[in-house]
């Protein structure tokens, strides 16, 4: 039935786990596009034939039917692209401008180009705030205390704190550091916030 292939693309996104990006379904899109051109050609043919015949309004119904299918396919295709961009955008905020490999190779060439464009324009927007710019990807939660207790989940090596002292982040060591400095490391899964 027309529109099923297009719906399959949408269901693919629906089934994907929260925050993960399924691979770009190149040939799924191609098939839907083929379906649309077939529908469109049939409609063109019917419209030509209908103008020559009189009183065959039943033909009109077929044209209307194909037109609705075309609109459906269009909507599914665009929704597929749009929602993938939303997921990719979320990644920019979560991981910063360098994406983990498993996401990178699920993106199509145009999507990663779009990602770079988005990342660049976001970065320039953030730089334009105040004199030195303001990193909006930071401070995602209202700060409750200045220092927090963190535990190191993976060896990370030396880490310079704000007041210039060096901290060695070794696996299973526990530290009490400035919150603002730990936040990016917590998001990358290197540190884990411990409630005292």
């Amino acid at each position, binding site marked *: 039935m027309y529109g099923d292939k297009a719906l399959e693309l949408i269901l693919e996104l629906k089934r994907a786990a929260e925050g993960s990006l399924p691979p770009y379904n190149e040939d799924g899109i191609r098939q839907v596009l083929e379906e649309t051109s077939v529908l469109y050609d049939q409609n063109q043919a019917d419209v030509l034939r209908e103008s020559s015949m009189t009183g065959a309004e039943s033909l009109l119904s077929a044209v209307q039917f194909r037109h609705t299918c075309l609109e459906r396919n269009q909507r599914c295709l665009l929704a597929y692209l749009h929602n993938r961009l939303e997921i990719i955008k979320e990644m920019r905020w979560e991981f910063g401008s360098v994406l983990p490999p498993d996401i990178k190779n699920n993106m199509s060439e145009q999507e990663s180009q779009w990602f770079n464009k988005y990342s660049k324009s976001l970065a320039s927007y953030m730089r334009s705030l105040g004199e030195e710019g303001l990193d909006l990807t930071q401070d995602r939660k209202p700060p409750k205390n*200045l*220092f927090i*207790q963190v*535990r190191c989940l993976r060896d990370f090596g*030396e880490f310079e*704190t704000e007041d210039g*002292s*060096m*901290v*060695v982040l*070794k*696996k*299973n*060591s*526990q*530290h*009490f*550091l*400035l919150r603002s400095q730990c936040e990016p490391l917590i998001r990358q899964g290197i540190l884990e916030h*411990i*409630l*005292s």
Partner: protein
Amino acid sequence: MLINDIRLQFYDKIIHKRVLLLVSHDVDALCACKILQALFHCDHIQYTIVAVAGKQDLERAFLEHSEQLEFVVMINCGGNIDLIELLQPEENVVFYICDSHRPIHLNNVFNDSQVKMLVNSGDEFNLPAYEDVIRNEESDEDDSGNESDEPSGKRRRFDEATLERKMEKRRKRREWEQNKERIMYDYDEFSFYGTAASLVMYDLAWKLSKDTNDLLWWAITGLTSQLIAKRIDREKYVSDVTELNRHVSRHNHRGNEDECPLSVNSMKISFVPELQLTLYKHWSLFESLRHSAYTACTLKLWTLKGQKKLNEFLADMGLPLAQSKQKFSAMDVEFKDNVKDWLETSAKKFGLDNISVPSFQVQFGFKHKYCALDVAFAVDALLESVNTSKSAEERFMEALDCLSRTYIDKLEDGLDLCKQQMMGVVNQVQSLLDMKKVVSAGPFLYAFVPDGTPGSKFFSRPNCLMTLGRFTLEAYVKLYNRRKARNLPLVVTAPLDFENGTSLVVGIPPLPELEQASRNFFGKAFEQAAEKTGSRTLHDNFEPSVVIMRTEDRSKFFDALISLLQ
């Protein structure tokens, strides 16, 4: 040097600095660490915590984290070893050591600049006099001094006086050396334990008037863990308990309940005489009696007669057998409430006089009610759990977490682990006794945990092996009641690592000594035996009487030990 004002000479020195915290793998150290963390959080002192299991860990951790670092705090480690010699630190690095291991290494005591010992002023250290052990330089110079002031070119005139003086000087020097030898031998011979690190830290918190109920509970847990591991004698424990009780009543005195009702989930600590039965509140009374050293050995539960005696004991208490096998919390209310008093009264008839010990109990929220013994047992079990693939540091972190109330449900796993551990210990003791594996080698008894037995994996952990050792010694002595065996110590070995064929060796002091301050001479003895036989041993643990050894060298090591202790 020994610090007397812990606030001025320690805390005020590190107030705005970054600190490296090296903490050993025992419950007392964990509790002291929690107290110190709480203080650091108040004053925004940045710190790094690294768990250290032995001297090699200590060295590695120090090297890795010591860049640009001036202040290192060590808890329950580094006190009984020559720290400066081991770590070769920079000039500006200062070590603050809060270690209950005794004796404190003399180089640490007499080093004024870099090593500061945080100790309880009440402890006695019977330190030798400074001059007796440290050769002060200027008396050396006299000897070399007068040689150099005479021009070597001119032939020296021999006269009786200088020769006399030189002879006198050398004799005095030799005498001093011998005297030092004797003093050092007496000083180092026995290893034992002083006041718990957590008590020292709580005292600091109190002096900073930053002590709260949470900190007090950690101090109680630290002290109780010393009691369980028989590191201090009953008298020292009771005096520490009375000291803590003053703080408990200060923090937890309640007006009458309705006048100022306390919110349900605030922490309430109460002083309560507690039965020395392992985890009996979270087990059945029957199982707890069978798995507590004091009751199992006194009633000789290894024999059929003993089991009958246990039933007699329960009957005498007025507790039906079925009830005693119920989970304690599921017992009928009327039994549950007064079983403690019944047990104490009939315990006297069965030779279990000091079955109960003064202890504390905490309550917060509706379902959390623990006594200090349970918490100490659970945290120790978490530290030494064997059925997870977690590394020592991960177990350390988990045990550290379960001490704070936000992660209290981890304590429940600790309780289960402890039960499994205790069952492993009792089964092992039973089989050692049944198969007559506890053998007297003359000056001491010994027992080997055979390889491949199901429970043997428990005993690859030092504390658990020491628990087994104490349990076995008490069971053996009370079972056979031979006059000669009563004062013999025990050496226990258990397989540690099958690939490189190593086993863990632990020395347990004789039973009468165990009741008192459990002074342990095996530290020195193991060292000398290993030296003499050149057997491949590793004295890595901060507790000197715990040694790792290649299993092949065991027999020659034991022969040396026998001749040594003859």
